[in-house]
């Protein structure tokens, strides 16, 4: 029992198939307290299916999920939300035509008994959040700035800060650096560091090894529904990791050729 308490969330022997396709086979994954897990794999490897199971969107065919050592009998989307498991998607996190303060409190407005919004309070809280967690020190950027006019990295920052503000304990970042420039990617990394500093955990999903390696504490490689590598970063250099990645992918493509 005490051993299980070492992990924030744990998946044991998770299987999931869609029709005849085995999306996940006997997957075991542990996410530690205050740990950044980099989840990497090719398109269709099973990354999103795994995340959807961990956030209650899909239920596993078999296998067990644990939260802080407690077995979760049925994880639903609303239970996951109550536990503080939050997914940040790049394209569906924010409302682009609205200011930052509205986005922060979207769906969780500070209201009185009759549902009227306390706009002043929401703006004040947003300003605090921006100066603190988000690190916007310039006075040129205010809570009234329209989110759609901000850069991609900053937008991710708004979504991550929002999750942290509402005390998320496990943040799933789904391909947060897709299509971002180098400087914007760096900004996303800074926000991931904030998650670390706030003593929260994060699963960082990407198919780009170079985007995962600099910030992850542990790197998990998924391939065809199986976890093929699960290593602490200090066990492996980037070069070695890259080599292994190519081995996995290369071997697979070789297999495909043979069977054909």
């Amino acid at each position, binding site marked *: 029992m005490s051993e299980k308490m070492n992990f924030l969330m744990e998946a044991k022997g998770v299987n999931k198939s869609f029709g005849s396709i085995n999306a996940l086979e006997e997957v075991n994954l542990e996410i530690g307290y205050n740990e950044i897990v980099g989840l990497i794999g090719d398109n269709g490897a099973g990354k999103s299916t795994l995340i959807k199971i961990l956030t209650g969107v899909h239920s596993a065919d078999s296998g067990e999920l644990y939260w802080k050592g407690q077995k979760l009998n049925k994880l639903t989307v609303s239970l996951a939300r109550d536990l503080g498991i939050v997914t940040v998607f790049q394209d*569906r996190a924010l409302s*682009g035509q609205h200011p930052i303060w*509205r986005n922060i409190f*979207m769906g969780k407005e500070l209201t009185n008994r009759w549902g*009227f*919004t306390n706009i002043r309070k929401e703006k004040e809280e947003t300003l605090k959040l921006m100066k603190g967690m988000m690190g916007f020190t310039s006075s040129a950027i205010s809570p009234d700035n329209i989110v759609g006019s901000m850069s991609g990295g900053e937008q991710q920052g708004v979504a991550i800060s929002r999750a942290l503000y509402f005390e998320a304990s496990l943040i799933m970042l789904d391909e947060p650096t897709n299509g971002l420039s180098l400087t914007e990617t760096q900004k996303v990394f800074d926000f991931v560091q904030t998650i670390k500093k706030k003593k929260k955990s994060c699963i960082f999903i990407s198919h780009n090894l170079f985007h995962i390696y600099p910030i992850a504490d542990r790197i998990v490689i998924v391939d065809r529904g199986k976890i093929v590598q699960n290593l602490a970063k200090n066990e492996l250099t980037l070069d070695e990791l890259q080599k292994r990645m190519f081995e996995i992918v290369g071997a697979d493509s070789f297999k495909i050729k043979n069977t054909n």
Partner: protein
Amino acid sequence: MMKNRFLRDFINKRKIEIAIGLVFFIMMIVFIIANPVVFLNYRVYMAVFTTLPILIILSTSMVFVIASGEIDLSFPSIIGISAWAFAIIAKAGVNPFLALIVAIIVGSFCGFLNSLLITNLGLSSLVLTLGMNFLLRGLIMIITGGKGISLAFLRNTEIFSIFTDKIGIFPIQMLWAIGFVMINWFLFYRHKFGGHVCYIGDNLMSAREMGISVNKVMVSTFVLMGASSGFVGVLLCLINNQFWPTTGDGYLLIVLAATFLGGTPTWGGIGTIFGAIMGSLILGFLETGIISSGLTGFYTKFFFGLILILALISHRFAGLNKKGK
């Protein structure tokens, strides 16, 4: 310095509203110059205020529907069927206030029906409400056999003096419109409902992701539109002392024009109540202004179109373009 900054922020945030306000202002100055005798006299304003409330109530409620990314083309017939319900109940000798409540319930129910079909079956609101507009109008025609109902007996009764009488020279329905607009304004800007409407229109996926119950909000916007139409149906009956099977028919395009003219964009996600009021004022005064400027009524539609297109261009220059791109 500080003051300047507030002013600059205000102008930045309210560009669309300022632009449309200016259009109205300039238009009125042109009318005053063209015919000072008419436009420096209160009478013309009181005349316009008689029917302006209809336009204001409908266009400010339409802001919600359009900001949510949908549209409602069925409201003219909802006005008609609510007006019909009001007329037959009042004619039967039932308390007309009860008839008013029934009319609003009928309107709300039609909106509810629209929203159920849109949310549960995923139908296109554009086509569904277009169909509903024909369906309900057809229903009224079938039931009434194309005959109107005289409501002259309601003149100078209690319900008439509360809703459509005049205080001195001022039409009371204008006060109801102002009250209605204030409720809509608070709902849109100060209540979480308005926010949720906009988030759904802006990014449906993110609204769902953040736990907003999308279907409930959609139902509420269409019910609001339906209830407004029901109320308007009763107002029209009282203003005209008559129910016509065509009641509400002429309002479809002019209400949409007022909403879009005001700066609520077609793509959803944002909207402006103030703009809808300004749009209603512009269209309300335009016809009177054209005729009293010495042009014939034939020019009305031409200027309606012209001002709509000019307003659209001015929105573009005020920075209103899709998704801030």
